[in-house]
């Protein structure tokens, strides 16, 4: 059974490496950030699978901290870049004072 867990963890690791394409190519900063968030979720799963495969219960704590705190970077991103809506949506018009350079790198 632990071989199966390990194989699953390996597969998830491969999906992280595949998802790096989104980080590298973008095009928007939202795409990059979302890919990093996805890695956080995948990382939690890999940690839990490794915890089962290696028989280390302490890794569950690591997974818990991961699940809780991977969101910090996302919150920092959302607070500064806003949500990637088109410029004429009602939400955007409500805050005319807030027109920094739209981030679409």
């Amino acid at each position, binding site marked *: 059974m*632990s*071989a199966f867990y*390990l*194989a699953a*963890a*390996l597969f998830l*690791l*491969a999906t*992280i*490496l595949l998802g*790096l394409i989104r*980080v*590298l190519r*973008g095009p928007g*900063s939202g795409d*990059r*950030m979302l*890919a*990093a968030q996805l*890695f*956080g979720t995948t*990382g939690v799963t*890999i*940690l839990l699978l*490794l915890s089962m495969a290696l028989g*280390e219960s*302490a*890794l569950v*704590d*690591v997974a*818990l*901290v*991961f699940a*809780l*705190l*991977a*969101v*910090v*970077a996302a*919150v*920092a*991103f*959302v*607070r*500064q*870049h*806003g*949500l990637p809506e088109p410029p004429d949506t009602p*939400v955007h018009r409500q*805050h005319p004072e*807030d027109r*920094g*350079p739209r*981030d679409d*790198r």
Partner: protein
Amino acid sequence: MSLLLVIFDLVLLAGIIGVAWRCLASTDLFRAVVLFITFGLLLALAWVRLEAPDIALAEAAIGAGITGALLLVTLERLRSIMAERHSGRPHTPPPDPSGPHALLRALHDPPPERHSFFPALIFALVVGSLLVTALWHQPQSTGLEPVVDAHMDVSGVDHPITAVLLNFRAYDTFLELAIVLIALLGAWSLGRHDLIPARPAPGPILPGTLRLLVPVAIVTGVYVLWAGSHAPGGAFQAGAILGAAGILLVLARPRQLPMAPGIPLRLGITAGVALFLLVGLYGLGAGHGFLGYADAWAYPLIILIEVAATLSIALTLVALFVAGRPAGDDA
């Protein structure tokens, strides 16, 4: 089983090295920062493979959480400074991506020039191959694990890393707390803090998420601190988790900073170093040497220091994130 583990190690290492390489080769700073966040995540997995769940805990809180937010906020600060400089001077030409005063300059780094390629490459290759050679020919040794194991019963705790940090090598930990404090003093010496640039909260999701997340993060931090006496966990990990929770709180209302009162904040920030120093001096006076404990008092003293150190580390990390003295006291 072991073949799968070897493949896992190889893929993980290849991923770590590849991510670090793309991060360093990136011309777009935002991309570099996202790659660095990914790098921290993969590192936590590597620490798990190296049988270091304590380090993985700290890396999960710091690498995936705090550093990412810190870098993102720094990029935004740089951008707003550049934008302000350009808007304040109407005679300057509008930002031109190829021009010398480009606004984009804040967040972009042009590819490095050609003439430094070979010297840097040769230097890095020489250093790297020397390191690899030294590591491959290192004599086999058991390290200090047997020594620590032999003295565990007088340490006061059941977790070897906590025993090393707060009893056997308490001196290192004391100085480490002092370094963290000095880093904060350095940041504060640069002036008062500036607001973290932020857009209005885009809807009810963010405040709702934070209302749920922050209490859970605080409970987790206290749990990790408590677990440290017998399992992976302890003051540094708990401090990092609570610091990340504090950063979430700061991010929730960046326009209303500062909320930090002067004196209690300063007391909290120095609590770890101060209490450590007091305990050390007490040990010196009682004849156990600096930072030595009487065996019976080891456990309560370690817990006391750990609580104070957790508080200090958490507050210091939040203060470093805000960067700058709290407003209202220019003494």
